[in-house]
């Protein structure tokens, strides 16, 4: 798995930072040394020149004095050599020469050759005073020349600048030591800074890599990670060329069954907490070799490693159990449960997309059959694939209004007078054609689009009622709701809002609730019924007699109609027991003061019989199929 851990340790960045800072330190040191050296040498030279000037003026003054006292030039040299200033002449003065009439007359001191200087002075035509500098034999020399005011003599003095070298030696020493130390400090700083910057950079990179590969809510790996992991494993497997008969892994698609209810009833915070708890449980249920991924919403995916030929079924059962155990949250216990679809790699697909698709199909199958988990089977791919395809198109279909309502008449018995309509949804699928609820209601209930779908049905039915009202036709319309809708706290306000908006009286609206096994909590249903009743909406129980808790409903719920399931009606004439059941139902409902509607009446004989048994309202192909608005409108009086 190490090849997947995205480690972006950019050593080149670090090296570049280091080289850059050290080069900068070297450059700064060099500039510093050069400037300081030049500054020091300039300073020293100017001091020396000033000092030299003083000495020169002093010698010049002394000489002028001697010249004025001694007339005889022959005695002059002796006088100079005996004069006190000569004794105290500093050794720095390497040449002291007296010129008369621009010709060298006396060399009081001469340790360097001055002909070059005199030549230079000659070229300048021996000005009143002049000075300059020259380097002879690695010696730095400065010279000064001056004529006396009465033009009797000129003085040329050359000085060796030795003090400058000493000073520079000192300065150079300290500068190089300082440079060495600062350079070292700079390297320290560069090392530390480059490390800090790189560390920061790496941290950010790691954070990004983590975010890219993980789900923020649960901290589990995400889909991107799974794709990379799978592809790397797939490549590895290809390289080793294992036999393809052995399944090396299994993809588990886990979908929580009642998560949407929790989310809708208790809010997203509770939903998120629930997901976190489940994620933790799943994490504990798998081994380190497996990959657990939050696939989105309430879907998890596990890639089981089957290298040690583990048995999948106990594992899947364990996962089912851990998902099914109650989750204590928000002062209550949630039992969500899960459906799991399993697809084997490479048996059920060599690429991840196929595996996902097949695991999804298996999961859908498990959901439909309520078996908990299913393995993908090749035998029934078309049907299931179509289901999966349709499920993927649901949201889009609701948005683009591909659903329409058709209306089936409800009539009074025995005269067949139209007394109401049941609105039924049809999906005008652009490819598949007109689809009946049997093909998509399950999908809608499982896909989380049930609320938006029901809102569409409610709005459309109320709008139609108002349209008919505007045309002077008043007829009750019943709509079918799913048990899932009752958990929607916004449902009743929505009804009220729509009724108000279209100005349709509430008694024209009926809600039919299918007796559904998923209707777990009768308290929620009771509560919803009471609220709908308080609006004035009529209520009925659909498909009565097929569910498990029919009589409990009769006792507990406050409904207006009971619709006897078509299965009783269909066999009523052949099977006397069914007839008796219907008879009993009708009499019981009457004593409970509830109206009975018989569904699925297809023949006159059935209608006649039901009337005899006391049923006063019927519905079925015998009285009219579900029809489009344009076909049914003329029948409404």
């Amino acid at each position: 798995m190490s090849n997947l851990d995205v480690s972006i340790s950019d050593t080149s960045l670090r090296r570049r930072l280091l080289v850059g800072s050290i080069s900068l330190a070297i450059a700064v040191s060099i500039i510093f040394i050069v400037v300081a050296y030049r500054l020091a040498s300039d300073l020293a030279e100017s001091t020396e020149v000033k000092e030299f000037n003083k000495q020169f003026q002093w010698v010049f003054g002394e000489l002028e004095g001697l010249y004025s006292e001694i007339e005889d030039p022959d005695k002059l040299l002796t006088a100079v050599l005996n004069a006190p200033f000569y004794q105290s002449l500093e050794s720095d003065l390497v040449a002291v020469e007296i010129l008369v009439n621009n010709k060298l007359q006396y060399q009081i001191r001469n340790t360097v050759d001055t002909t070059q200087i005199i030549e230079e002075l000659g070229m300048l035509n021996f000005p009143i005073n002049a000075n300059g500098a020259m380097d002879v034999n690695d010696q730095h020399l400065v010279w000064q020349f001056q004529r006396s005011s009465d033009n009797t003599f000129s003085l040329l003095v050359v000085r060796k600048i030795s003090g400058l070298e000493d000073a520079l030696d000192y300065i150079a020493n300290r500068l190089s030591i300082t440079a060495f130390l600062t350079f070292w400090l700079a390297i320290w700083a560069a090392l530390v800074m480059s490390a800090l910057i790189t560390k920061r950079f790496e941290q950010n990179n790691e954070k990004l890599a983590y975010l890219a590969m993980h789900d923020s809510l649960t901290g589990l790996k995400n889909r991107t990670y799974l794709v990379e992991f799978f592809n790397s494993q797939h490549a590895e497997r290809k390289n080793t060329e294992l036999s393809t008969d052995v399944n090396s892994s299994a993809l588990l698609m886990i979908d929580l069954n009642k998560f949407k209810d929790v989310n809708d009833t208790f809010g997203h915070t509770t939903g998120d907490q629930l997901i976190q708890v489940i994620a933790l449980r799943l994490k504990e249920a798998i081994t380190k070799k497996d990959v657990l991924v939050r696939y989105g919403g309430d879907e998890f995916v596990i890639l089981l490693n089957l290298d040690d030929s583990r048995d999948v079924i106990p594992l899947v059962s364990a996962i089912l159990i851990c998902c099914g155990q109650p989750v204590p949250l928000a002062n209550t216990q949630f039992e969500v449960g899960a459906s799991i679809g399993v697809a084997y790699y490479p048996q059920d697909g060599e690429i991840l997309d196929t595996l996902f698709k097949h695991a999804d199909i298996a999961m859908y199958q498990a959901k439909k059959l309520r078996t908990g988990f299913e393995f993908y089977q090749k035998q029934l791919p078309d049907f299931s694939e179509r289901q999966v395809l349709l499920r993927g198109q649901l949201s889009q279909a609701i948005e683009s209004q591909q659903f329409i309502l058709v209306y089936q008449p409800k009539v009074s018995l025995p005269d067949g007078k139209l007394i109401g309509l049941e609105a039924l949804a049809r999906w005008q699928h652009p490819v598949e054609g007109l689809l009946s609820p049997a093909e998509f209601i399950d999908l809608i209930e499982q896909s989380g689009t049930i609320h938006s779908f029901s809102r569409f049905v409610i709005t459309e039915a109320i709008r139609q009622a108002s349209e008919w009202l505007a045309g002077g036709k008043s007829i009750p319309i019943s709509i079918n709701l799913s048990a899932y809708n009752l958990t929607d706290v916004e449902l009743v306000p929505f009804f009220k809002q729509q009724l108000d908006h279209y100005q349709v009286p509430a008694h024209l609206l009926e809600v039919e609730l299918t007796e559904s096994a998923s209707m777990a909590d009768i308290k929620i249903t009771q509560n919803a019924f009471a609220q709908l009743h308080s609006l004035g909406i009529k209520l009925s129980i659909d498909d009565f007699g097929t569910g498990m808790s029919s009589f409990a409903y009769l006792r507990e719920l406050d409904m207006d109609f009971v619709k006897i399931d078509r299965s009783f009606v269909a066999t009523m004439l052949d099977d006397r027991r069914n007839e008796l059941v219907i008879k009993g139902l009708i009499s019981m409902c009457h004593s409970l003061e509830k109206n009975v509607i018989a569904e699925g009446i297809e023949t006159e004989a059935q209608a006649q019989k039901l009337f005899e048994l006391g049923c006063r309202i019927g519905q079925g192909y015998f009285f009219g199929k579900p029809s489009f608005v344009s076909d049914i409108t003329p029948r409404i009086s």
Partner: protein
Amino acid sequence: MTLPKMNLCKLDRVIRGVLSVALIIFAVFWADKIGDVLLQTLIIVFAVLNLISFAIGWCPVYKLANISTFKD
């Protein structure tokens, strides 16, 4: 107190040792060449720090910079 984990290799330590001894000798015996007490002190401090890291095989700057030349 336990010593921190070593992060210097042998060569690194030898260089530091030689350098610090050389610097201490230089700073003590050529003080007039340096001619500045502050510089002399700095050199000695630098040398002593190096001497310590030579002795224990651990460099705090390496630690901060997350570098290690240490080899088993």
